């Protein structure tokens, strides 16, 4: 124990102990035993995901509650949609193009081994609309827009700007989080559509122009296998991911603490949690949807 801490520790029983000029003063407690520390840490580790899900559920509830109450801040909604949506067009298009192209390449190569390369268009199309489109778009939006949202809200939190909103009688959930989650809900499905269209264009280009697959057959097989149910499945996933990505990003930023380092750590957690959440939810949603169909 440092001298300063010792002086403060004695404060309870010795009222005239001089104040220290060291930073914040923590009250000292009896050091817990090694075993308690280990078991506490272990249970905290096991419980952490549930605590986190609980916090997110609570925040989602608040977002819905405040989302339906006036004032409806149209300007903030549009700003957020522009940031989440328009701002992600470039990266989503680029990843879509390359992913479609490489899928075309791989699947054509695989199918050729049993003379089925004509099916490439169909299989790429189905994988894109159902799985790869929503998952990759959400991952891209998380790493670009999500991380930026966490950093922005985190900086606002540690510099008391969020508290300032509250003291000015403006609800910070309504002002900051509702527009961003709404933007995720609307824009991620739109971006997913873009991703799939550009991805199909990439696959088509590789298959038709590089590998010499007949363009008519490619499109015909695609139309034969991919129907509106696949599109709907993809869009539902995209909407769920859109809410998840923005909600997790907002939650991490909103509750950031500990200065600039704390904001960095929060951004980190936001991206990691989102990657896990997207893939886990993808499995969950797929099993629900396929179970029903």
């Amino acid at each position, binding site marked *: 124990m440092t001298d300063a801490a010792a002086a*403060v520790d004695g*404060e309870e029983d010795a*009222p*005239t*102990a*001089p*104040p*220290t*000029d*060291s*930073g*914040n*003063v923590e*009250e000292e*407690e009896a050091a817990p035993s090694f075993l308690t520390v280990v078991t506490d840490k272990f249970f905290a580790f096991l419980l952490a995901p549930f605590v986190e899900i609980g916090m997110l559920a609570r925040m989602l509830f608040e977002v819905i509650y405040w989302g339906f109450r006036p004032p409806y801040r149209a300007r903030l909604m549009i700003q957020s949609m522009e940031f989440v949506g328009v701002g992600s067009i470039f990266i989503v298009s680029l990843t879509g193009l390359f992913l479609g192209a490489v899928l075309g390449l791989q699947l054509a190569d695989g199918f050729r081994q049993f003379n089925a390369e004509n099916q490439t268009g169909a299989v790429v199309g189905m994988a894109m609309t159902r799985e790869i489109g929503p998952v990759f778009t959400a991952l891209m939006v998380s790493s670009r827009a999500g991380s930026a949202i966490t950093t922005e809200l985190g*900086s*606002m939190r540690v*510099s*008391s*700007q969020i*508290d*300032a909103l*509250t*003291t*000015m*009688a*403006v609800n910070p959930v309504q002002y900051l989080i509702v527009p961003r989650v709404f933007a995720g809900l609307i824009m991620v499905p739109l971006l997913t559509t873009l991703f799939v269209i550009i991805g199909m264009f990439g696959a088509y280009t590789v298959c038709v122009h590089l590998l010499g697959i007949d363009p008519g057959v490619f499109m015909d097989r695609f139309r034969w296998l991919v129907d509106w149910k696949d599109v709907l499945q993809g869009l539902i996933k995209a909407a769920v991911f859109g809410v998840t990505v923005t909600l997790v990003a907002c939650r991490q930023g909103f509750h950031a603490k500990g200065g600039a380092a704390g904001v960095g750590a929060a951004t980190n957690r936001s991206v990691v949690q989102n990657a896990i959440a997207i893939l886990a939810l993808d499995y969950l949603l797929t099993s629900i949807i396929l179970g029903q169909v």
Partner: protein
Amino acid sequence: MAKGTTVVTGHAGAKITLTSPDEYKDEPEKDPVHIRVRDLHKSYGKHHVLKGMSFDIFRGKTNVLIGPSGSGKSVLMRQLIRLESPDSGEVLVNGVDYTKLRGRALDKKRKGMGMVFQMSALFDSMTVFDNVAFPLREHTKLSRKEIRDRVMDRLQSLGIGAAWNRSPAELSGGMQRRVAVARSLVLETEILIYDEPTTGLDPITTQTVDDLIREAESKYGVTSIVISHDMASVFRIADYVTFLYFGEIAATGPPKELLKELSGPMMEFVRASGVSVEIIEAARRGK
């Protein structure tokens, strides 16, 4: 002892004299005491931070809350503006218990209370003008022109009219405080709370911020609550001082009164702050 007052015990048996609201029951706006904090408690887990605080905040005056780091000043401030709810106790503003308010009623009262945060907490995505206009746009139906007039009036009277178009990041610390004060004053603010407004500023800027607090008070008649650990500013600006010592009140009253009976932790604090002994002695000798 004046009529209707009670005495409670603070830190180390210190006697704290408290006024009663009964005398002004019918017209609480005329009561010289604006806020009565009564037996306020707040804990975080096992950590008991506010251990039953009672003191008065005087209307239209500069009330300084002073104490060493970690004594609970910021926590107290968070209870006063209801960023958090205390575990028990009362905060009576014009006779109304603030701690019991919820939802809309709380938001309505909040508009009468402004807060100048330690690092100013200006919205850095907005210009100075938009920062100050923000509360008006959120809470009033004023026209564009009325908003512009009101905002420019506040900015000009605080000497930052020329900076209306700049972003907060481009301003010096002292100017940022001015903008924060302008933003807090733009609604019908009655109470202005400053959390360590001069921490991290150079001595000259510190002085201008002290002047600013006085200015806001004389121009707009607000009650100022200044949280500080800067002893020098106490002598410059305080009408009333409340000394916090690790979650308790060690002394409260006008600065001269306190200096006369300096003892215990407050004595140590004043000495360590380097405020000249002559000032203290002079205060003790003369009235």
